[in-house]
C-alpha cells in the first residue's frame, strides 16, 4: 500500500490482502503452528503499521506475529516463500490472486517442501489411506525380511503426513509415560514426613520466643527414574520406526533424563537430536545422523556395544529401559542371551515392546526372541497408537509383572 493510494482502492486491496493473510494464517495453522484468529487480526494491524514497501519488512512483520518460538521459524520460512512465492508480491495482491493458484507448483517441489506444508496448502485432499495404522500388514514370515546386506542409505523422513502427525500428537498428549516415581535421597520440606526439619523447626520455635517447639518435617522427593530407549530401525521394523520416532520425540520432550538410541547394525545415540522441539527438525537431524536405516539387525552386538560404552553412563541412576524391537536377529544368538542378561541386571526395569506380539498365535520361535525373553520384566506389543496408550498404563502400575513373558517361556 503506497501512502498516496486512493482510500477506496485501498479498501479493496485491503480486502483481498486481508483475505490473503487469512489464508496464509490458515496454512500455517494446518502445518501445525499455533495460529488463532486473534493472531490474524494482530497480523493485519502489524502489516498496516509496517507498510508493504519491502518484502523483507513484510516477512519479519508476519514473523513477529505468527512465530513465537525459535523452532517454528523454519516452517514459517518455508510457508512464507511458497505462499508469497512471487517476489512481486504487491502486484500479486493487486491482481487479487488467491493463493490456491500456487498449489500446483507447490506439489512439484517435493524435495524443497516439507510434506506437512504441501498438505497444509492443499487442504481438501482426502487423508491418505496408507496412514491407517490399524490396517498395517506385517509379513508374518518376518524371519525372511531381515535383509542380509547392510543397506547404508539416507532414509527420507519427508513422507510423514499431517494426518499421521496429528494422530501421533494426539496420542502423545495422553501419553505421558507415567513410569512409577521412585523415592530419591533428596529431602524436601513437607507438613508431615519421616524426618524432622531442624532448620524450619527452630525458626518456628523462635516465633514463640522458644516457649514451644512445633515440629516441622522433611521427606524424600519422588522422581521419575531416567528412561533409556533403544529402538530397532532395521528393515523388519521399518513400518514402525517412523511412528515410533514420533513417540520417542514426544516422551523425550515430556521430561528430563531420557536417552534415546536407535540401532540396526550399529548403535547410534540420537538423544541430542530428539531434543529439538519441532518434530520435523528433530527427525531430519536424526536421519542425517543415522546411517543404517532399514538394514539388517545385529541385536546381540548392539546390546554388547551398549553395555560396554553406554550402560554405565546412562543407567547410573536406576533407569528404566524401553527396548523396542521385533527380536529378529541376523546375528548368532549366543552372545545375545548373556548381553541381554547384563542389560537386565544393570537397570531398574527392562520393558520389551515387540510389534510381532499383536498376533494371537505369536510364539517365540526365532532364536533371538528366545534369547531375549528370559531377561525382560514386561513384554508388550507396540503396533498402533492403542498399544502405546496401553503402555503408559502398564508403566504406572506399582510392580513389574512378568506374567506375559512367563507364559511365553513356559
Amino acid at each position: 500500500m503506497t501512502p498516496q493510494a486512493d482510500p477506496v482502492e485501498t479498501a479493496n486491496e485491503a480486502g483481498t490482502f486481508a483475505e490473503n493473510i487469512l489464508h496464509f494464517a490458515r496454512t500455517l495453522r494446518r502445518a501445525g503452528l499455533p495460529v488463532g484468529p486473534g493472531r490474524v487480526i494482530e497480523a493485519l494491524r502489524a502489516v498496516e503499521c509496517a507498510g508493504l514497501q519491502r518484502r523483507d519488512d513484510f516477512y519479519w512483520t508476519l514473523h513477529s506475529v505468527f512465530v513465537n518460538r525459535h523452532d517454528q521459524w523454519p516452517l514459517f520460512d518455508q510457508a512464507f516463500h511458497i505462499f508469497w512465492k512471487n517476489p512481486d508480491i504487491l502486484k500479486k495482491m493487486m491482481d487479487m490472486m488467491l493463493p490456491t493458484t500456487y498449489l500446483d507448483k507447490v506439489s512439484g517441489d517435493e524435495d524443497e517442501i516439507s510434506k506437512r506444508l504441501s498438505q497444509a496448502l492443499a487442504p481438501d485432499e482426502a487423508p491418505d489411506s496408507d496412514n491407517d495404522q490399524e490396517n498395517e500388514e506385517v509379513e508374518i514370515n518376518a524371519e525372511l525380511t531381515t535383509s542380509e546386506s547392510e543397506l547404508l542409505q539416507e532414509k527420507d523422513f519427508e513422507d510423514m503426513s499431517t494426518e499421521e502427525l496429528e494422530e501421533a500428537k494426539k496420542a502423545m498428549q495422553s501419553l505421558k509415560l507415567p513410569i512409577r516415581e521412585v523415592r530419591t535421597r533428596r529431602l524436601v520440606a513437607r507438613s508431615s514426613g519421616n524426618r524432622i526439619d531442624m532448620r524450619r523447626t527452630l525458626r518456628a520455635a523462635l516465633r514463640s520466643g522458644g516457649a514451644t517447639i512445633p515440629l516441622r518435617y522433611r521427606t524424600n522427593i519422588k522422581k521419575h527414574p531416567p528412561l533409556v530407549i533403544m529402538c530397532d530401525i532395521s528393515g523388519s521394523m521399518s513400518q514402525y520406526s517412523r511412528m515410533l520416532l514420533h513417540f520417542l520425540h514426544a516422551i523425550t520432550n515430556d521430561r528430563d533424563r531420557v536417552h534415546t538410541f536407535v540401532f540396526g547394525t550399529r548403535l547410534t545415540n540420537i538423544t541430542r537430536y530428539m531434543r529439538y522441539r519441532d518434530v520435523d527438525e528433530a527427525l531430519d537431524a536424526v536421519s542425517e545422523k543415522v546411517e543404517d536405516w532399514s538394514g539388517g539387525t545385529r541385536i546381540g552386538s548392539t546390546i554388547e556395544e551398549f553395555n560396554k560404552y553406554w550402560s554405565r553412563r546412562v543407567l547410573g541412576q536406576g533407569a528404566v529401559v524401553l527396548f523396542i524391537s521385533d527380536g529378529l536377529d541376523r546375528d548368532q544368538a549366543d552372545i545375545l542371551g548373556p548381553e541381554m542378561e547384563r542389560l537386565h541386571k544393570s537397570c531398574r526395569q527392562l520393558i520389551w515392546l515387540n510389534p510381532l506380539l499383536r498376533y494371537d498365535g505369536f510364539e517365540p520361535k526365532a532364536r533371538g526372541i528366545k534369547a531375549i525373553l528370559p531377561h525382560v520384566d514386561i513384554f508388550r506389543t507396540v503396533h498402533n497408537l492403542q498399544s502405546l496408550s496401553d503402555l503408559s498404563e502398564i508403566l504406572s502400575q506399582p510392580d513389574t509383572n512378568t506374567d506375559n513373558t512367563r507364559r511365553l517361556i513356559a
Partner: protein
Amino acid sequence: MPSTLPSSIDAVETLLKEANYVADRSLATVLFLSLKMGRPLFLEGEAGVGKTEIAKVLADQLDRPLIRLQCYEGLDVSSAVYEWNYARQMIEIRLSEATETTDKKTLGQNIFSDEFLIKRPLLQALEDTGKGAPVLLIDELDRTDEPFEAYLLEVLSDFQITIPELGTIKAAEPPIVIITSNRTREIHDALKRRCLYHWVDYPDAEREKDIIRRKIPGADERLTAQIVAFVQKLREDPSLFKLPGIAESLDWTNALTELNTISLDPAVINDTLGVLLKYQDDIAKMQGSEAAEILTQINQELESSGDTAG
C-alpha cells in the same frame, strides 16, 4: 614449597613430577590453563586413572589446604554448603529463657550468627585461609542429581554463597577448583561450559612404567616391564568389560612384590587376576590359556626390544 602458581606448562610438569605424579603433556597444559585463567578444571575418565590424585598433589605442592566435597546422591545444601548447629541453638534458646532475656529479635540475631554455623566444604572453600585460595576438589560429581549441579553452577560462576540469615559470603580469591566425574551420567553442558575439560586417559607403557617406579621404588625392573606390557595388552582387548586402570597396575605390582614374584608366569597370573580385573566374566575370559598366550607374546616383545631392564 612454592605457594605461587606455576608460570609455564613446563613448571606444572615439574611441579607434578616432584610429587611423583607423572602427567602427560596434555594434562599439564590444561592444568596450567586452569590455574592461569582461574577456571575450574573438569576431569573425566575411567576409574583409577588418577583424577582425584591431581587435586591432592596440587594442594600439596602449592601448599594450599585441600577441601574435598565427595558427592553422592541426595547431597544437599546442608551437607555441601552449611548447616546451623541446631543443638547449640536449642540450648541458647533455653538459656535465654532461663535468664529471662527472651527478646525474640535479639535471640534470633544471636542464634543465627557465625558461631552457630557449621561450615561445609563449599563454604570453607570461599574463606581466606591465610595461605592463599584453597584447592577445592569436587569428587565424582556425576553421583549427585541435577538440582545440585545447577546450584553448583551458580557457586562456580560467582564464587559466592548466600545464607539468608547472614547475607552473602564472597571469596576474596576464588579457589582452585577440580571437578572429577566417572561418567555414570552425563553432566549438563552448562556446567561443562564453565570449566576446562580434560579426558584423563590410560597412560602409555613408558609413562606407566615411570609411575610404578616412582610409586613402588622396590619393585623389580624386569617384573615392572612385564606387568606394564601385560596390562597394556589387556587394555587393547575389546572384549573386556572393565579395563584395569593405573590403580590396578600399582596394586598388582604390590601384590606380586608381596608374593616375591621375580617374573610373571601363567600360574601366578591366574592366582592374582582378581587384583587386575573386577568382573567375573573378564576373569573367566582371561584365565588359563588366554593369559598364558599374552604372556608369551609380551615376553617375546620384551626380548626383541632388549627391554628386560626397563
